[in-house]
């Protein structure tokens, strides 16, 4: 009975689930707010610095290229997705919105690249957050 297939499946699922620890909650939040900080918190110094430099530089380049920063909106699907991408940059997005940057009219081709740089920086930070979480739960060294 103890080794029936149903019992075995439950046991396997229990082994696969991870316990909720402080680190597994705090790390993703900090990693989202400050790109690369989730890795730095867990003493992955080189990875953290490389992620921080890459994401922050990409975001700043996007702003310098006069890229558009999306605001929360319920309009066109591409505008909604643009906002989701931008908001991935966490603290960078919050500061940018607070300073009212990234609201200029797109007047040249480079500005459109800037918009894409901003969105991709946010999306890369989402990947970075997931990676920091996997390190926190011990799924990745």
């Amino acid at each position, binding site marked *: 009975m103890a080794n029936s297939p149903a019992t075995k499946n439950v046991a396997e699922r229990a082994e696969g689930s991870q316990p909720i620890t402080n680190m597994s909650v705090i790390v993703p939040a900090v990693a989202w707010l400050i790109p690369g900080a989730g890795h730095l918190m867990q003493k992955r110094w080189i990875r953290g610095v490389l992620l921080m430099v*890459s994401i922050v*530089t*990409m975001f700043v380049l996007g702003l310098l290229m006069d890229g558009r920063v999306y605001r929360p909106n319920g309009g066109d699907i591409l505008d909604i997705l643009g906002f989701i991408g931008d908001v991935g940059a966490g603290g960078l997005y919050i500061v940018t919105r607070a300073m009212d940057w990234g609201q200029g009219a797109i007047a040249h081709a480079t500005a459109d690249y800037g918009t894409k740089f901003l969105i*991709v920086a946010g999306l890369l930070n989402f*990947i970075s957050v997931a990676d920091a979480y996997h390190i926190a739960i011990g799924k990745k060294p």
Partner: protein
Amino acid sequence: MTLELSHFSAALLFSIFASVVFGITQRSATRDMVRYGLYCFVLFLGGVLLAGWVMWFLRH
């Protein structure tokens, strides 16, 4: 201050930063991270150059 990059330099910068993040996040061992990052970088830039030549041939 407005930064006006060329198409290629924008693609180059994009490739570098995206490849670094992909390399670090998608592999576990350090050696594999470097290899995968370089692989992504080559694919990004190769894709740009290939698309550029395809567009050139379509135009001529």
